[in-house]
């Protein structure tokens, strides 16, 4: 496999992770356009750990992810009070604040605006990325069939009624936000250790918007939607090479058209009827 194809596959893996990181809070009705910020946190923290503290990759990724996750939980609490566009703008603001932070602070460690070079000497193998993809896909698979997944569906559809039937909305929403942040953080760490170079400019608003587009276009109501969306956005440009510089226009038109034709995205909940895990006893299933 050529190195170009390897890069493409790693991008696909990372984009799938990023899509999942946006899907998680969105499944509880929270639109976050700031996940590039969590990605940045994961990237920088894990890079600092491996480069300056010579920590092994796996613990660095985990710590990077957890740092992002904790900040996600902290942001998740005030986020509860905001709905719709207000929440979107707050998360956007958050993402920009994080980007600015890494541009101006910790610069002796990270190179600031000039970028963080030499994150390791050889890129990590692509199986690191896809290993994590497999893990999170499995995670969401089990989640969607569990009672927690059912609760998320309820919270997404009708928050007030959900609270009145005993669902702990605060716990659900904040956790979803934190888990999403964790996934973005891990994706960031993987990105940093594959490309061996990061700079704050990479983690800008448009990155956040792209992640959201993967989920919206692919289908917002199931985790496979984000996977499909990431796949389309990463791989389709390869098949559209003939469009050269006009690929952006193509995607713009595609988005406009899709919103008119099929606003819920390509994959709907109906298509993938979730079958909840059913327990068996004495051969009887309920």
């Amino acid at each position, binding site marked *: 496999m050529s190195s170009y194809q390897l890069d493409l596959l790693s991008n696909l893996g990372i984009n799938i992770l990023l899509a999942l990181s946006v899907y998680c809070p969105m499944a509880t009705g929270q639109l976050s356009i700031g996940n590039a910020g969590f990605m940045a946190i994961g990237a920088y923290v894990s890079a600092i750990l491996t480069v300056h503290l010579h920590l092994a990759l796996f613990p660095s990724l985990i710590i990077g992810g957890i740092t992002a996750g904790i900040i996600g939980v902290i942001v998740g609490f005030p986020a509860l009070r905001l709905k719709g566009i207000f929440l979107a703008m707050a998360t956007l603001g958050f993402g920009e604040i994080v980007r600015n932070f890494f541009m101006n602070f910790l610069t002796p460690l990270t190179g600031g605006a000039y970028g963080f070079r030499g994150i390791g000497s050889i890129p990590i193998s692509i199986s690191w990325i896809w290993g994590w993809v497999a893990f999170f896909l499995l*995670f969401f698979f*089990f*989640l969607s*069939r*569990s*009672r*927690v997944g*059912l*609760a998320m*569906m*309820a919270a997404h*559809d*009708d928050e*007030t*009624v959900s*609270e*009145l*039937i*005993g*669902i*702990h*909305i605060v716990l659900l929403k904040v956790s979803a936000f934190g888990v999403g942040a964790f996934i973005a953080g891990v994706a960031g760490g993987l990105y940093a250790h594959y490309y061996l170079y990061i700079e704050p400019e990479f983690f800008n608003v448009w990155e956040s918007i792209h992640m959201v587009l993967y989920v919206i276009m692919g289908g917002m*109501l199931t985790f496979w939607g984000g996977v499909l969306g990431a796949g389309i956005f990463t791989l389709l440009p390869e098949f559209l090479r003939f469009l050269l510089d006009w690929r952006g226009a193509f995607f713009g038109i595609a988005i406009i058209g899709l919103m008119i034709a099929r606003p819920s995205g390509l994959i709907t*909940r109906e298509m993938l009827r979730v079958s*909840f*895990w*059913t*327990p*068996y*006893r004495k051969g009887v299933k*309920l």
Partner: protein
Amino acid sequence: MKKPPLLSLNRVSKTFGGLVAVNDLNLEVSQGYIFGLIGPNGAGKTTVFNLITGVYPCAHGSIRLEDSELTILKPYRIARLGISRTFQTIRLFPNMTTWEHVLIGQNFLSRPRLGGILPLQRAEEFTLREQAQEALKVLGLWEMKERRAVTLPYGSQRKVEIARALAARPKLLLLDEPTAGMNAREKEDVLNALAKIHDFGVTILVIEHDMRVVMGLCDHIFVLNFGQKIAEGTPSEIRKNEEVLEAYLGQEE
């Protein structure tokens, strides 16, 4: 010896801006009976439900369920203490099947390890599902369990709402106009179901406009007007009550 009440409202008041919705209300609901809450439109009946379940914060007065003070609790806590409700306009989850509605209704009853993501504790889950099955069968919804709830006929949708509320095994069931918009046969259906539910020992407080339903179903009735209790008693007492008749005649039906 008088049994302590299951639910008691003490000097409860609620104002919205300048409008007084509920005024110094006192109510006692004892365990095991069916209570009716009636009154003209705008009397404050749904507001009372919203105050009990925590949808509206209650700044004046006290609402107690057995020993617990409800006015300081968040709605999900109140639900977990054992109060479930249905709504005036049906509020089902648009994407869930009937079966899923009952499952979600009993969600908080399961205490899974690891948040229930891994399919552990099969025995406990199995028991819960048996109970869910029971709730559906009592209400005659078993055949429709795989259908998306919002596609069911109107009467069945109301029953799904009741099933969802029942699945939580509540001590107190609040029903907001459960037979609204139904024809006679559907109403009878629901009433039979409610009688069966009552046999299980669930205390019911029901808001209703159909007088025959109220008189036939309830053991004790509260009458509200302009946010105040103007009368209470057995159906036969209420039927003869002057003030009640006046309150209703003053209303254009």
